[in-house]
């Protein structure tokens, strides 16, 4: 392996601080990580899909998960995986948490016909944004075009 190959390999393995910043930006505001790198179409597509999914989920009456509600023991632990998925939406989740939107846990709310659809959209919004975040990170680190 030549010296140039080793240097290239090293630069691929250690991601620059900028890549971490882009990843963080992409998580915090869906689409921002790509927009900051001048990937307008990509940013609008990814951000648009995540924003639409999240807002659609709230509109359909979906429920956002959090640990530390009324549940105790194992039941509280079961809230953790969906909360991690929801947390992927970044600032959308944080704003909802601050204003208490989507965290209501009453039977009337859950009786809505679109409640489960809303839940799924909210969960998937976060998971899709994790993919977008990794994409922004990889682009900034030079691992992807």
């Amino acid at each position: 392996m030549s010296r140039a190959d080793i240097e290239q390999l090293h630069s691929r393995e250690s991601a620059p601080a900028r890549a971490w910043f882009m990843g963080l930006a992409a998580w915090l505001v869906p689409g921002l990580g790509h927009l900051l790198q001048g990937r307008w179409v990509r940013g609008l597509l990814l951000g648009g899909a995540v924003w639409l999914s999240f807002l659609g989920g709230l509109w359909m009456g979906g429920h956002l998960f959090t640990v530390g509600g009324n549940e105790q023991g194992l039941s509280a632990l079961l809230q953790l995986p969906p909360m991690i998925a929801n947390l992927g939406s970044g600032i959308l989740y944080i704003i909802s948490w601050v204003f208490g939107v989507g965290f209501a846990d009453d039977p009337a709310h859950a009786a809505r016909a679109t409640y489960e659809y809303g839940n799924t959209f909210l969960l998937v919004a976060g998971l899709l944004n994790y993919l977008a975040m990794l994409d922004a990170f990889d682009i900034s680190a030079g691992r992807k075009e």
Partner: protein
Amino acid sequence: MRHFLVMTAFAVMAAVVFGTVAKDTPRARLTYGLKVFVEFMAIGLVLSWILYFLPF
């Protein structure tokens, strides 16, 4: 009808993200995105018919 629209919206958003992050060229992204969309829709419809006939 509402269920179908929601399923379509879900498939569109998932296909957009999968297509955008998974491939390198615009053509490959479009092809892959369409493939993912069709797969989501087809599997959703097949599963819905299977569940329709289940008695529980």
